[in-house]
Structure formats: structure tokens, C-alpha cells
């Protein structure tokens, strides 16, 4: 199956995992953090559920992610997953932000 996944892989191969916002490994600034939380709840939530308990996409609650490799999850967030409905988010998230989002999900989204 092709869809966007090939597109994502091509982009990935061509551009490499360059951080869009070049925020570095540090946590995003306060204002951006609020934006990211909003984005995760609302825009990721349209497939994973507002409370991350799952929908078309699997649950992303702490218990579901505890045993999974953070780097791999971060890769899925940035590049999507081939053959599935999970789209790549690298246009909207830097590497550091994706890492921060994965940590956020593993801890549980704040209310």
C-alpha cells in the first residue's frame, strides 16, 4: 500500500531527520507547550480519542505505551506508519517536540 507513507519515507530519505523548529533536546518554551498539548488532545485526539483511550488509532495512554521504545514512538509520530492511517507529523513538529510529545503521552496528558 502506498498512500502518504511512501511520501513520508521519500521525504525522510531526502531531508533526513532535521528538526523543523531546531529547538534542540530541551523542552519547548511555555507557550509552545500549551500549543502542543492542545494539538495532541484535539488533532491527535481526532483519531486516538480526546482522552487518548483510542479510536481509529490505538490508545496512547501511559499503560499502553509503557513497554514501548520511546525512540520508535517518536519515529512513528514524525514519519507516520506505512500502510496505516497514522500520518507523519514532521511538518508540524521538530524532533525535540516529537520527543517531548511522546514523553507527555507516557506520563499522561495533563487535564
Amino acid at each position, binding site marked *: *500500500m502506498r498512500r502518504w507513507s511512501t511520501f513520508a519515507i521519500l521525504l525522510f530519505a531526502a531531508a533526513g531527520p532535521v528538526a523543523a523548529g531546531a529547538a534542540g533536546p530541551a523542552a519547548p518554551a511555555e507557550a509552545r507547550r500549551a500549543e502542543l498539548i492542545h494539538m495532541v488532545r484535539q488533532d491527535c485526539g481526532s483519531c486516538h480519542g480526546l482522552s487518548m483511550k483510542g479510536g481509529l488509532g490505538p490508545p496512547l495512554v501511559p499503560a499502553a505505551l509503557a513497554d514501548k521504545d520511546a525512540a520508535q514512538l517518536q519515529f512513528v509520530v514524525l514519519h507516520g506508519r506505512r500502510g496505516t492511517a497514522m500520518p507523519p507529523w514532521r511538518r508540524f513538529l521538530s524532533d525535540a517536540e516529537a520527543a517531548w510529545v511522546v514523553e507527555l503521552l507516557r506520563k499522561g496528558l495533563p487535564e
Partner: protein
Amino acid sequence: MKRAPAWRLAAVLAAVLAAVLVGCAQPELRGTGDLGLVVERAAGRVKLIETSGRTALATIAGLGDLSHASIVYSRDGRYGYVFGRDGGLSRVDLLLARLDRRVVQAGNAIGGAISQDGRLIAVANYEPGGVRIFDAATLEPLADIPAAFGDGTRRAKVVGIADAPGQRFVFSLFEAGEIWVADLSDPRRPQVTRHRDIGKQPYDGLITPDGRHYIAGLFGEDGLALLDLWNPQAGVRRILGGYGRGEEPLPVYKMPHLRGWAIAGGHAVLPAIGRKEVLVVETAGWSEAARIPVHGQPVFVIAQPGGRRAWVNFAFPDNDTVQVIDLPSRSVVKTLKPGRAVLHMEFTARGEQVWVSSRDDDSVIVYDPASFAEIARIRADKPSGIFLSSRAFATGF
């Protein structure tokens, strides 16, 4: 001055109370034809609105997780059945503006439908994958249809459930690539007809307003699957196969919705998936007639009653925009910016108003579709779906 004895005070109080109660028992009478519900998705509430004065009348809380919530109406237009993400099925009384009853019937649900005779509610579930049937009056469970596929141990997520004439419900199985037709003539003994290999990953479905054709959109490949309910033995047919013509689709950040599509002059308009296009299909032979380039990837393509125009909203990150398509000329005639994160649009039955929800501006905006003038703006907490009670009388809603 002597103090009034306690019993006299009590008698006065009782009289006042009785007067109040009598007052309550004879409220101003009203119909429900101009009422509707707006989902406040994050807060687990719905707002009761009316379209005559265009105001909010009440807020009804306690409905659970309402991400991707949808609503159908009882055949008398009094109750709205709210399908929540958390498997909650809630019956809301529009006249008393309160939650009438509620059951949590599954772990994770996606939507539902009401039977032709109004006596059954069907809920489509992701977890456990399948459809459950309830008595519309009591919400008592009547039947369970597990969406088992393959060797029978796996269960698929159910999407695109629609009511069809003859006490039937039609729905699609995402992982299985199947369309099922369940006949509920005997509500406790569903008769299910399975259509297999209908295409990869059906993500939503719709039924045409005449109740004849069921169409499932496919995520896993180009095209749609069509079932003619007048000739079900002919099986499911692929239509618009390869509408992408080998072009690489864009990443999809929000799944399009097929309900609410437009039909006019023998043509239907649908959102293309993974493309910034609206597809025009001729409904006699179900072949592609045209594609209209639009601002972003369409989510809803909603027909204006009468079918002259269609209003389109878009997926993230283009979701601050709504475009209006003129169907005879197949061109975009208006681009509006109602607010941030526009999630849904709903016309009144005669098409003189269209209600638009802007999640991130916490507003519902009412437009005059003829002049595109904003005629009202109502505050709502992260509004998503807008459901007017006129849906009670339409097949597929």
C-alpha cells in the same frame, strides 16, 4: 404583635410551592422542529439551541467523552440519542432540556443510527468491534452483532453505520474490508448478510437519501464501494476506482466524513481522501464526472437543501476555512474564514440558515447562505457536531 404559628407559615409555604408547581406543570407549549443540539466535545455536554431566534436555550451535561460524538433523533423529534466515544449512549429530552437516560454499552464507540420505525437504536463500536441494538424507549439491550472476521477470533472496528428501509442497518468493517447488512425485523434475532472483499480499510459510509445505495469510502485504496440495496444479490461494486490516477496522496490528518453529502441534478459530490479535491459523481452510472480543486483536504461536503450549492470544510492544518461550491458551474463561489478549527456545518431543513462550529474560537456561527452574512454567533465550549432535529425525518441521519 403575635408571631404567626408555625403551621400557618407551613400552610403559606405549601400554597406558594403548589402555585410554583402548577406554574411548572403548564409551561408554554412548544414544538421541537426548530431545536437542535451542539456537541461540546471536551466538556462532555451538549448545548440545546433553537433556530427561530438563533439562541442557546440550555446546556445538558454528564454525557461522557464526546470526541467524535454524533446524534440521531427519535421519530417524534423529542429525544436526541447521543453516541459518545466512551461507549456511552445517552437519551436527551429536548423539551425538558435534560438527560433522560444513559447507558455505557461498550468501551469505545464511533456512532449510531435509528431504525426506520424509530424503535431501535444501533450503536457501532470500535471496542469490542461490532454493533449493539437497543430499545429506543428504554435503552434496554436487545441484540449484539460481533464484527468477527478472518478465522473468527479477530473483531473489526465498525464504521459508517446507516439505517436502511426495511428495519435494516448497513455498516462497514474497517480491518476486514466488509459491508454487512443486518435485518432487525425481529429485534432479538438479527439476520446478517455479509459482503466480503469490498476494498481495503473502509473508513466511513453513507446511504443515499432514497435509501437505495450504500457507499463506503476506502482509505487503503482509491475508490469507493457501492451496494445497491434494491439488488443486494448483485454484490458490492467498486466505483471511482483509481480516482487518484497513481498520484501520491497527501498525508491525511483527519478522516473525511461521508454523511451529509450533496446530490443535485443527477450528480453527487464527495470529499476525496488524501487530495485537495471534491469529487463529482454522476449517480446514474456512478462514474466520475469532475473534480473540483479546493482549499484543503475536505472533511465534510454538505449539501444546501435544494442542492444548488455545497459547503465544504477542511482537515488540519487548513481547518480555518469553509468554501462554498456552486454545483451547476462546479466552481468555488465563496471562501469564508469562520474561525479556528471549523469542525462541522449543518443547514436548517429549508436551507435559509447554515450553522458552523469553530472549536478553537469556542463559537457557533450562523450564516445566511444566500448573502454569506453572519447572522448570529453563539458561545459554546469547543463545539464540534451540530445536529438539528429535522434529522428525525431523513433516512441516513
